[in-house]
């Protein structure tokens, strides 16, 4: 199982960086979806099944749909695209930045001043997710509902009255 985590982690990293570096917005969106799916697998392996399902369905699904519809709503022409993609050189430094910061981070995490807390085995019954979500975290459920209502109001306010 460890191997799966390593592979997915690596893929997620690569696709995440690609999502930033791709010139085409469509490719970026797809790379993001792939990274998201990899994260879903990691979650599944770590035991967070429901979170994994949400991640794969909502993040890699719904958000990609949103991006694609946004791309289709904005028919950027060639000239404009050329201007927008002047950032080719600007993005070229990303690997350098990542290498430098990666080395720094490695130095930090391997130093004796740093350690993660020891993992505690999961000591919860099978149906705790339901209980946690619906009873202990009821406030969050209410918050989610309000966020969704706000989202709906946003769509009404930003799209409905468009001339």
């Amino acid at each position: 199982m460890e191997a799966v985590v390593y592979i997915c982690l690596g893929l997620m990293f690569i696709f995440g960086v690609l999502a930033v570096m791709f010139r085409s917005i469509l490719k970026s969106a797809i790379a993001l979806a792939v990274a998201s799916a990899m994260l879903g697998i990691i979650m599944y392996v770590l035991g967070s099944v429901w979170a994994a399902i949400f991640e794969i369905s909502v993040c890699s699904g719904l958000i990609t749909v949103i991006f694609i519809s946004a791309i289709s709503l904005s028919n950027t022409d060639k000239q404009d695209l050329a201007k927008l993609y002047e950032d080719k050189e600007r993005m070229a430094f990303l690997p350098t930045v990542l290498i430098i910061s990666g080395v720094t981070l490695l130095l930090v995490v391997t130093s004796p001043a740093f350690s993660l807390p020891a993992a505690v085995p999961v000591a919860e019954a099978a149906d705790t997710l339901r209980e946690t979500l619906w009873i202990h975290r009821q406030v969050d459920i209410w918050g989610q509902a309000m966020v969704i209502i706000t989202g709906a109001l946003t769509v009404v306010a930003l799209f409905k009255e468009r001339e």
Partner: protein
Amino acid sequence: MQVIEYSAVLFFAVPLAILLINILFPKQLAEKFSIYLAGIAAITQIAASAAGFLLLSAYRLHEYEFSFWDMTNAGSVRFGVNTFSLVILFCIGLVSLASILVANRTVDKKRAGYVNLLMMLMLGMNGMVMVTDLFSLYVFLEIVGIASFVLIAMFKSDTGLEGAFKYLVMSILASIMILTGLSFIFMQTGSLQYAHVVGMNLLEGQSSPQLMLIYAAMTLMIAGFGIKTGAVPFHSWLPDAHQSANTAVSVLLSGIVIKVAGIYGFIVLTGLFSKLPAVNMALAIMGTVSIIIGALFALRQNHFKRIVAYSSVSQMGYILLGLSAGSILGLLGAVVHVFNHATFKSTLFTNAAAVHEQTGTYDIDEMGGLEKKMPVTGFSSLAAFMSTAGIPPFAGFWSKLLIIMALWDSGFQLFAAIALFASIFTAVYFLRLQKKVFFGKLLSKFAGLTEIGGSIKFAQIMLTVVTIATGLFFPFALLYLKGIGIL
């Protein structure tokens, strides 16, 4: 005690009910009556928070926790109010009322949309102040954020969309930081409820290497809430967003949103991690830099609302300084300054709306001598500016005094001196504003100018009365607080 719980329920029930009514009503009716419904919500909130405060002090309690229906399990998240959060809830009601009164003049179309989002904003802010769990705090913070982006953007002007987008991007950065910080704390504690986080005593084993994660979490959360507050160097979005929004929305944003979204976060943070000297030091430095840089920016602006927005940056610095003292006196000073800032900043934005309605411009270079034609606006602006500059016996003086005293007591004498000195800057940039807009000779093109009337005038008078009354009766308030055992 039941009564407090009912009054607390009102904070959620009333905005939700009004939202529902507004959505279910036919569109024409909603456009017409929604603003009055919103007024009812704001007034209910003011009344409920005042009643709650009095009840709480009558029972000699500092805080009261409660839950709705069956959230009684030990591990579940509960709501709670305490004396300080009730003051903030009161401010929410007051500023919302001011915003609604201004909106009655400045918002023509999309009134229903404005009211819906305002209700969501109030819900979000009320929730933030009342929850007792860091993650729920984050959830309600996002509601506040989303509602404010859309409130800025919904009028679809170029500048409005621009301000909203800048605010949005900076805000998401803040969310990322706050959430990362939360996950690190969660990693250590296994729970994010305030009581558990405090009970865990994260800082007990000072030598533990795992402390590094806590420090990282602190750094990220300070930066995150700093962005939400608009403290320097995280301030850049604030003047843009507050300038470009409809003035009714600016009243909300500057008057209360930055304080609930940012300062309240800091209040929670300092409450949970006050044992870390680095946190206090970071807040003190951020506060001092905000005061000075915000004032320098405000000195060079020509846009009425932008000056007032930069003044918010500067004043947030004072509140941060008060919190950095880490004592109950400092907290009191900060909360009182939140209240004072809510009143006088709302007054100033209301005046901006009045001036714009009557003259059609925000550019202070094009104005002059308006005091003669608009005496109410001129006077309320003067009162607000005196309060901001901390001139006794206006309200701002007392809160600044408390903050400086708290700093002095906590050993931050240098910061206290700088804060005192920087008050001069405040006076200077507002004198400049006052002089260019209200004093001096009346320009000939304004010969036919009239005073603003209607709801904006009412808002000006209401807020000015609150400012002046707070200043005059503050010593009594202090005695009262002493009497109920807070000081």
